[in-house]
């Protein structure tokens, strides 16, 4: 699989605050990525640099093999920002018409279907839209653009759970018909687990982890049982969190467990369960911050 985005040693500071610290990031073609991090972790700064909205202090960004500079047209990209600033007095349909000119793969039939699916009146002016409807406009632009690299920054802000689920299913269905690279930044960690194929975890301007979701699922476990048994079992393993309640111990592992170890766990009467991404994220980021 080819590379659609390559960032090398990206760094950006605002005064004395380092927002992005020497980030290397490579996105492959036709893959859905999740970028997760706490508020202020550097997600939006990183995305703004990748898309040329702001400029890195040093480092390089390449999209589809083309180095991005300040005046460069980035043809293969669609970036939907968290807060979509658009023209207040312009109708939704006019906004889509303008946006369509900038995206060579734009699909009008799909855009019109999306308007219906999200029950968005194309004759409404942008200033008349609620926060959720504004997010719908961004989502329609992002999906209908069918850009080889589509970046959503917190795309579901202001949407209720039904609309969020609708967005995820529409995106997945369209992605299966028209594969492309989608990078989605969000703080709704559990919701993206079923969508993304790979994740990047960012904190304090640094990429802490990048992992395939399949590989992640095979490495993140809770081990629960009597204290002595758990302690024996986790020896030499990558433990990211440990809790004890009386004689019961719960350990959160980020490590592989082979068949022999599984058998051993059963023998020790330990239960092994998968760990949700959100829990892993909390332990992983919080644990690192305590250590630092």
């Amino acid at each position: 699989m080819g590379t659609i985005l390559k960032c090398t040693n990206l760094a950006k500071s605002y005064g004395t605050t380092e927002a992005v610290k020497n980030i290397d990031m490579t996105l492959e073609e036709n893959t859905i990525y999740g970028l997760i991090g706490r508020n202020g972790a550097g997600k939006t700064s990183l995305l703004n640099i990748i898309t040329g909205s702001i400029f890195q202090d040093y480092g390089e960004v390449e999209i589809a093999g083309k180095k991005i500079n300040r005046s460069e047209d980035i043809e293969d990209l669609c970036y939907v920002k968290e807060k979509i600033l658009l023209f207040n007095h312009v109708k939704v349909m006019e906004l889509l018409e303008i946006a369509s000119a900038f995206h060579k793969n734009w699909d009008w039939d799909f855009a019109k279907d999306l308007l219906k699916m999200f029950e968005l009146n194309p004759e409404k002016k942008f200033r008349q839209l609620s926060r959720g409807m504004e997010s719908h406009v961004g989502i329609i632009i992002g999906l209908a653009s069918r850009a080889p690299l589509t970046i959503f920054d917190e795309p579901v802000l202001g949407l209720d759970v039904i609309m969020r689920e609708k967005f995820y299913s529409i995106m997945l269905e369209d992605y299966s018909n028209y594969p492309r690279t989608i990078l989605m930044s969000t703080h709704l960690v559990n919701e993206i687990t079923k969508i993304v194929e790979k994740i990047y975890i960012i904190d304090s301007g640094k990429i802490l982890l990048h992992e395939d979701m399949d590989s992640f699922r095979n490495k993140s476990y809770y081990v629960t049982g009597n204290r002595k048994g758990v302690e024996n079992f986790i020896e030499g393993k990558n433990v990211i969190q440990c809790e004890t309640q009386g004689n019961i111990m719960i350990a959160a592992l980020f490590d592989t467990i082979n068949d022999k170890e599984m058998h051993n766990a059963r023998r020790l009467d330990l239960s092994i369960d998968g760990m949700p991404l959100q829990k892993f994220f909390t332990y992983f980021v919080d644990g690192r911050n305590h250590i630092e």
Partner: protein
Amino acid sequence: MSRLLSVVKGSYGVLRVYLMILVGLVAIAFFINLLLGIGNINRNSEVSSGNIVTIFLLIISGVLPLYFFKRIINLGASRKEYYFGTIIAYIFWVAAFSVFNIIWFLLEQNVFIEYKSYFNIIEIFGWDRYGVIGMFIYQFSTYLFIVAFFNLVFSCFRDRLALGIYILLAAAISVSMSISSLREAVFKGVAILFFNPTILPSTILTFALIGLLFMAGWFFTTRREIYK
């Protein structure tokens, strides 16, 4: 729709509200004053409504760099498309207002004169000395120069380098206005550019300066960052 045309269309979407408000207000004032003139209640000379409505050109040179820029980029335009599309929009509006002012000036001279007299910059600056084509060329080059200048001022908004330009500009204006010999030189320079009886050299010089101003505007546009 081509990308540049899309930028122009987007700019119209933003500007039409300002245009409607300005034209509406000026039209109301014009008709009230005309009625007063017809009724012989007030026949005092007034500033031409065509000239007043041309203030719109100042509005666009502020609104497009300050408001329109980040929004059109959010819709997918590149900085280059924004800038060239914006220049096309400037040229369109400058040409449209130059033509409008000629028509309005002729109406004032031939129709409204029965009831009112007007101060019109075309007459004051002597832009009518070469007929309709001369009126257009003088206006077009002068208006475009002003638009290009304000476009630069607003394009470098928030840029550290621009602070130097602002300080230089403020210093140049205050010094040149306070020293009489400099004041005369400034007026001479302005006269050469905009009211010069020899239309060709002054137009060429003005367009050269317009080109420089737009180039400087482009330099600052490539440095502008969009955080939201």
